[in-house]
Every structure is written in C-alpha cells, then in structure tokens.
C-alpha cells in the first residue's frame, strides 16, 4: 500500500489504491490476481489492451490478456500461452532484460512495458497499449510502476500457495515406494495423502482418504494428544520434530504402536510429511520381557512353598557364634559333597559380589526390625568353576525379647531365569537401537535430499529411490542377521535390473567379500546414486552404453572399487555437487578412511573408490 501512496493530485485517491491492493492480495488463485492486475491497469491508465508476458526457456509467451470494453474489461486467460507479435516481443524483451519501464511507439508514447520484479531468473512484463486518444502521462507511469510492483508480490504469493497445494499431490511417487508409511498432514488433523504402507498400518482404504475419513487427530488416543501438541510446537521452530512413539487407533478399533518422524514444508506452517514405522514387534518384545520379569517376581513370592521344586537349599545360621547348619541340597548347590559340614568362611571365596553388601543388608534388616530380606548374588562353584546366580531369602528369627537369634536362609538357583532375562533385555536393546538408528538414517536422507533438490517433484522422486536403496540393504542385512552381507550380493541387489545376463549392462568383477552393516548401507546408497546418474546422463542413457564395476583387495588390505562407464555420451562435470557426490566425498570416503576419485572423462564417467577393508568389515 505504501508503494501506491503519494500519487499526486491527479492520481486516484487513497480509496481506489486501497481497493486495488485488496483486489490483488485478496485473491489466492494466480489467475484471480492476474485478472485483478490487468483490470486495475486498464482502469487506471485508460489503455485499450493490457497483456501479461512471460519469458520461458523457449521464448516469450502471453499468459493473459485484457481489453477495455464499454462496460469495463474483458479477459482472456491463455493456458496455451501464444507467442506475442514482434512489436510486443521487442518491448517485453527490453523490459525483462533491463528490469526498467520502457515506453515505445511514436510520440505521444502509445505503448508501455513494466517489469514485474521477482526472485526467479526469468521475468514477466505487464504491457499496455494506449486507447485511440490516449497516451501515458508521467503520473500514470508512476502509478502503473507501483501497481506492477504490488502485482508481482501478490502473484508470487498466490503461485507459492498453489505450488504448495500441488506439492502434496505431486508427492505420490514417494508414497508408492511403501518402504514405510508416509502421509501428508495438515494441522486441521487431515491426512491429505497417504501411501499403501501407511494405509495398511492404520487399516483404512484409499477411498477413505479421498472421502476425508482419515484424520490423524481422531486416530490418536487421548493420552497421546499432549505428545502430539509438543511435536507441533517443535515443528514450528525447527521444521522437524524429534521422532517419538505413540499409538494409532486403527479403523477396526485395534491400537497399533508406531514411531513417527515428522517434517513440515518450508513454505507452510500448517502442512508437512510424516514417516511412520510400525513397532508392534518392538512392543511385543517389551511385553515378553515384562512377562518374564513378573514371572520372576511371582516365583520369588512363592519361594516359601517351593522348597520341593528343587535347585534350592536351606541353612540356619546362629547369630551368637556364626555356626552354620546347611541342608544337603545347599551343599550340592554350592559345589560340595552333600555330607561335608560347611562353614561361613568356606562359602565366602565363591562369592563374586562383595560379601560386605550381604552383611550390610543383614545389619540393615536387623536394625530396622524387618523380618525378611532378600539378596541376589553371583557365586563361582569351587568344583566346576561355573558361575551361578543365587537368590537368597533370609528370615530373621527373634526371641521373646525381640532379639535376633538366628537367620534361616533359603537359597534358590535362578541362573537360567536370569540368563533368559538378560537375553531378552539384549534383544530388546538391539531392536530398539536398530529402529532408532534406521529412523535417524531415514531423517538424514530426508534432510540431505531437501538440501539438494529444487522442486517437490524432484524431492519425492529422489527420496523414493533412496529409501528403496536403503530398504534393499536392510533386506540383505536381515537375511544375514545384521552381521553383514557379501559385497557382490550388495552390488547385485542394488543394480539388479542391469546385471542379469544375457545382455547385462553392468558387468560385476570381484569376490564376494564380507562387508559389515554400515558398509552395506553406505555402499547400497552410493550404488543407487551412481546408477541413477548413469541412467540420466551416462552410459545407461543410451542403448549401447556399458559399465564395468570391478573391485579387489590390495596388499595393504585396502578395497579398490572402480566404476567405469563407456559407450555413452561424454560426461561433463555437473554445475553443483548433488547428494551423490556429497555421499561419495563427505560420506563414503571419510567413513571408511579412504579416497574417492571422480573423473568426467570424454569416454565416460569414472569413479574410483579406495576404502579400508578393516573398517568396511566392521560389524
């Protein structure tokens, strides 16, 4: 509005300026803004024709046109965007090239072109033809200049809004990858797009999404609402929320545990993408562990009646002189002949835990008047050297004056149960770690892909490919119980479409060396980038191009991998380093303490990698 102020006495009054601005900025559709812009320009300048001309990579195009009529203006939006005539083209070219207002035609000036300033490299111009009696006075030119400036801003806003709406629609390829659940969300609770993997997790159909029945807010049980709000708050600041666990209520009413990674679009505070991993397996493992723990506690509670169940021993110990009276079963448990009299001193060397803890627990119980105390300790049998885990339940027997007289101890061997518990815990930690790790890798890929792509379409396509590459690596790792996979298998799986004889386009040459999980993941991603590049610009972009992919170990245990393209078009260096190059130079080379040499040779792209095999093989 400020741009429209100060127009001088003959300019339209503030009210008209206000009305024009409202007309421009009130429209959310680019077409509406264009109509308001051309209509206002015609009205203010008394011109007979107003055109919006755009410079495309293939030349000038008329986007829209308005003509003055007796009762206002008539508009033609031009989806086909015809080329302007020579005279108009020359005018628009000069405006866009110089970014200046240009007047042309015989005096008095009958045509005028005004630039619509914007950030993009290619510009737009508003061109006007004066009516039969008209010309463009200096006041009118000042007014039109301000209008063009305001129009450019309004137009850009409207286009950005439309692009954002299209972005969600254009993410479709990503959803089809189905590596994990992905949906587009808005803050109104809507799920506006979702892939099959997500629909499977929550049990809804594609029609349900189309009918607006899928709502992440309604799918969220009440106890998780607060956690959701926290994530939304994080999104406002950071564009990404910390991954977290929650549950969704499926369409059939069953709850499903999930882990979420949420990003919002840069351009919008209200919309974004959410990656969903189902973690039922993890939760089931947690539940199994909890069961095992409660079974353990229950068995402890039942100890008093469980003497006959075996693997137990009893003893009595007199407080006055420390005399011990063990049952034969205790002797067996401790690794002594059943009939050998045992003393406390003989038992102590086998204790792996600090005996002081045992006496401290006893003294505490005696002092507090507690009748029973329990303690767990590790014990090494003197006869076999085997380490067992014992749970000891001690009952303090007191006399009439409440003075402790003796302790009756019940010893139970809980080694097997303990081992089971530890195995469960280990498994659980491992699973938990792997899920979190996978999610952080996925978020890393999302972040890097966002940094290196310019359009939502390109983002979705690139992300889909990378997630699929990651998924292939994970399949191999799962087959190998996450210890690693063969190098040839990794390459063959990532390049599957190209390595199958006959007519193979990529020839693999090298041994099936064992590579650890990190190597498998990184090499999988690298191969995906290389082959994608070859399909776009290199040897796989023409029918006869071939790639030799060979590897060998040198005497220093360095792994040399050579990717050599031939028979394709010459490989010019790219103008900027994309994700593939970053991955090679900043990722692969540094992770595996080696070097990467990239050669954009006329006969074809070539990439040589030298990597520490010791590091690659690490599990």
């Amino acid at each position, binding site marked *: 509005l400020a741009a429209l102020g100060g127009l001088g006495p003959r300019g339209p009054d503030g009210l008209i300026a206000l009305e024009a601005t409202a007309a421009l900025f009130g429209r959310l559709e680019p077409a509406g803004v264009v109509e308001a812009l051309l209509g206002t320009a015609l009205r203010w300048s008394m011109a007979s024709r107003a055109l919006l001309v755009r410079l495309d990579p293939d030349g000038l195009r008329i986007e829209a046109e308005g003509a003055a009529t007796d009762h206002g203006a008539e508009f033609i939006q031009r989806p086909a965007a015809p080329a302007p005539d020579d005279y108009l083209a020359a005018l628009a070219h000069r405006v866009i090239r110089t970014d200046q207002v240009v007047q042309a035609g015989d005096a008095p000036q009958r045509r005028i072109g005004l630039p619509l300033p914007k950030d993009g490299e290619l510009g737009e111009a508003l061109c006007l033809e004066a009516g039969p009696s008209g010309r463009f006075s200096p006041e009118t030119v000042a007014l039109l200049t301000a209008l063009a400036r305001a129009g450019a801003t309004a137009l850009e806003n409207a286009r950005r809004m439309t692009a954002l709406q299209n972005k969600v629609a254009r993410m479709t390829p990503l959803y089809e990858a189905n590596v994990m659940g992905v949906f587009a969300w808005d803050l109104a609770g809507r799920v506006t797009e979702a892939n099959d993997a997500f629909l499977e997790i929550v049990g809804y159909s594609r029609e349900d999404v189309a009918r607006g029945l899928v709502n992440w807010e309604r799918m969220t049980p009440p106890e998780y609402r607060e956690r959701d709000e926290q994530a939304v708050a*994080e999104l406002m*600041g*950071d564009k*990404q*929320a*910390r*991954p977290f666990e929650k549950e969704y209520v499926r369409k059939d009413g069953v709850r499903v545990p999930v882990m979420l990674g949420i990003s919002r679009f840069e351009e919008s505070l209200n919309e974004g993408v959410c990656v969903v991993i189902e973690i039922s397996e993890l939760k089931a493992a947690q539940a199994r562990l909890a069961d095992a723990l409660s079974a353990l506690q229950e068995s402890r509670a039942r100890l008093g009646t469980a003497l006959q169940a075996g693997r137990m021993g009893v003893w009595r110990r007199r407080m006055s002189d420390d005399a011990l009276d063990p049952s034969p079963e205790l002797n067996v448990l401790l690794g002594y002949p059943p009939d050998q009299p045992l003393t406390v001193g003989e038992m102590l060397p086998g204790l792996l835990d600090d005996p002081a803890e045992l006496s401290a627990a006893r003294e505490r119980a005696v002092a507090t008047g507690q009748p029973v105390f329990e303690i767990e300790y590790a014990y090494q049998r003197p006869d076999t050297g085997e380490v067992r885990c014992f749970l000891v339940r001690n009952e303090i027997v007191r006399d009439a004056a409440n003075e402790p007289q003796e302790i009756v101890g019940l010893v139970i061997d809980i080694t097997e149960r303990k081992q089971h518990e530890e195995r469960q815990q280990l498994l659980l930690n491992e699973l938990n*770690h792997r899920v*979190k*790790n996978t*999610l*952080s*890798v996925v*978020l*890393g*890929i999302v*972040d*890097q892909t966002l*940094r290196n792509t310019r359009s939502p379409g390109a983002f979705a396509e690139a992300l889909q490919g990378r997630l699929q590459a990651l998924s292939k690596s994970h399949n191999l790792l799962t087959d190998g119980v996450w210890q690693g996979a063969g190098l040839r298998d990794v390459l063959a799986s990532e390049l599957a479409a190209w390595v199958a004889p006959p007519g193979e386009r990529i020839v693999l040459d090298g041994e099936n060396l064992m590579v650890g999980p*990190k190597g498998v993941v*990184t090499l999988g991603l690298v191969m995906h980038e290389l082959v994608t590049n070859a399909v776009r610009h290199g040897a796989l972009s023409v029918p006869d191009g071939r790639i030799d992919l060979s590897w060998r170990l040198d005497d220093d245990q360095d792994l040399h991998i050579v990717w050599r393209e031939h028979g394709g078009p010459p490989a010019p260096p790219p103008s900027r380093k994309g994700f593939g190059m*970053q*991955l090679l130079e*900043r*990722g*692969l080379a*540094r*992770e595996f*303490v080696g070097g990467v040499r990239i050669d954009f040779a006329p006969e074809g792209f070539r990439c040589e990698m030298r990597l520490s095999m010791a590091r690659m093989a*690490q599990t």
Partner: protein
Amino acid sequence: VSVATDPDRAARVLVVEDEMLVAMVLEDQLADAGFKVVGPAFSVEEAMRLAASEPLDGAVLDINLAGEKVYPVADLLAARNVPFVYVTGFGRAGLRETDQGRPMLQKPYLFASLEAIVRGWG
C-alpha cells in the same frame, strides 16, 4: 562462542559421530549456523588425533563409536579446557559417574537445543 561472518574467525567445533548420514546432517546444520566444523571423526582414533592437534572452541561427542567409547577424547578435551556436549541414544544413565555434570542431549534431539549449547560456550 561468537560467530563471525569471516569464516577464518568462526568458532571451530569438533564433530565426533559414527553414523555417516547423521554426521553429514550435523555438519551442514553447524555450517549453516555459522560454525566451522572440524571432522567429522568416525572413530576414537581419528577423534583423538583431531582433539590433540586442532585449535577447538568446542566439541559434539557421540558416546558409542563402532563399539568403542568416546571417553578418552572427552578426557583429552577436558584437559585442554575445551567445552563439549555428549549426544547419545542411551540417555544420562549411559554416562560415566564423572560426566554426570556434563551437558548431554539424548538422540534424537532438536538441532536448536544443540545450537543453544554450542552458542553458550566461550
């Protein structure tokens, strides 16, 4: 830590992280925030070399590096009076007794939280 627009005077932060993509993201985020990243180091050995030889204003340390613990690096930095923050998936329970007073972020964390800690040094 002050952030100068002059890249030669930007605060130098050592990054120790063995998950390659996480390291790349962190490196980009720190660079975007105006810091000069030293590393990233993927192993204790490499981190020790950088911690011993590079001028540093601070460090971000992942605790578990391919099965090894980052503690020797932490001790070296402490001896040099270089402030650092631990980042770990295991939470405070995973820290040594002597590290209980140290700043720590549990993964996954928000970059803004890390940035606040790094800016607070100096």
